[in-house]
């Protein structure tokens, strides 16, 4: 049961190459938290429904609680820790704070990762589109109102800039 062999995994996490050993059964979420010290990956359910553990895996969002750590070998991973540029917050992070789009903040990393992907797709954003896009993520605190506002505000600022 225990005597299983440790597996060595090497992945790029937020731009840095990280090599660690783990058990096969360790989820990627657990490995990121415990082996790579990226604690912004939060676990709200460990069965794929709440979205708090969302990361960017090889370019697209994925739930890190639904992957096993060995699957990350050779992968390119971005977590919420990788969003800010040094001390400069990502515009979404800034907007979440300004619009009070977080209370306890436990869900926030997941929302930010999904919102970032949504914005990167570049389509026109309406309230409906934003709500649909974040509907895979659960927030128990905010009632979503301000999360939607924050994302729309960043989208508006971007389209404003594009028009200039």
């Amino acid at each position, binding site marked *: 049961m225990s005597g299983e062999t440790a597996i060595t995994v090497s992945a790029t996490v937020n731009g840095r190459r990280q090599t660690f050993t783990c058990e096969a059964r360790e989820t990627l979420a657990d490995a990121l938290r415990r082996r790579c010290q990226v604690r912004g990956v939060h676990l709200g359910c460990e069965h*794929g429904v709440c979205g708090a553990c969302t990361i960017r895996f090889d370019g*697209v969002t994925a*739930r890190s609680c639904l992957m096993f750590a*060995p699957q990350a070998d050779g992968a390119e991973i971005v977590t919420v820790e990788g969003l800010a540029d040094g001390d400069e917050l990502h515009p979404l992070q800034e907007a979440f704070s300004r619009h009070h789009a977080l209370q306890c903040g436990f869900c926030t990393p997941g929302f930010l990762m999904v919102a970032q992907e949504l914005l990167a797709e570049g389509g026109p954003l309406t309230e409906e589109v934003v709500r649909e896009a974040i509907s895979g993520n659960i927030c128990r605190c905010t009632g979503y109102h301000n999360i939607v506002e924050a994302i729309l505000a960043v989208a508006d600022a971007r389209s404003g800039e594009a028009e200039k």
Partner: protein
Amino acid sequence: MKAAAFRYHRATSLDDALAVMADDDEEVRALAGGQSLVPLMAMRLSRPEVLVDLNGVDALAGVALDGGHLRIGAMTRQRDVERSPLVAEHLPLLRTAIGHIGHVTIRHRGTIGGSVAHADPAAELPAAVVALGAEMVLASTGGTRVVPAEEFFDSYLVTAVEPGELLVEVRFPLGAVPARHGMAEFTRRAGDFAVAGAIVLADVAADLTVRRARVVPMAVDPAPRRSARAEELLVGRALDDGVIREVAAAVAAGCGPVDDIHGSAAYRRDLVAEMTRRALARLRQGAGE
């Protein structure tokens, strides 16, 4: 919620995967997108001894047009199927169906093969492949066989896939089924599995006469099945409200839903009739133009 221990094998090729799958001393399972399997493992409801990760087998992913078939590799991500121009052109139903699966993040990893092999009767893709008359290509070290979708699904989470076998491809014959589709489902929340749903395909003439039809209710049987009675009622008749109601009633009468916390069997029966009605109404919209 930590999975029981297992051995992990990252398959490098289909042959490599099949060789490990062939081990019949241990319980071996394929890992596709993990969006259904990993939660089950976390809850220790599934406890394979060996996990064969198919995510590195590039040959299993992709959408290709090949003679009379559209071939979709089992490991093709649901999101890639949804966005494939070939699928949009030839199998618009697939695109609609996938749009109902969970959320984009789930579809990024979830695969067509994983959903079909998982065979949840409330899932969209199993019903869609039955409606589309798809063929399931199964491989093992002993060779390859093809199982029609209608014979593939046995019951709740049980399929024709034998130990040692992998689903490698879902093959859609083009032109063999009606082109126009309608789909409707009722969920408790956005992105949830359907409480009941229906998929219909039909060829409809300018005067709304139905020439061919396929009707597959969702979440009301242990496995997705066509409703023969509903199809009979459609063919040769004009798709008017009366016929739609009749067909909806036939679907409801012919299915075998069960009670669960999201609804009783009786309610599901009524719901599937309503979903059939909506699916047909959607199909009719724009038909006959």
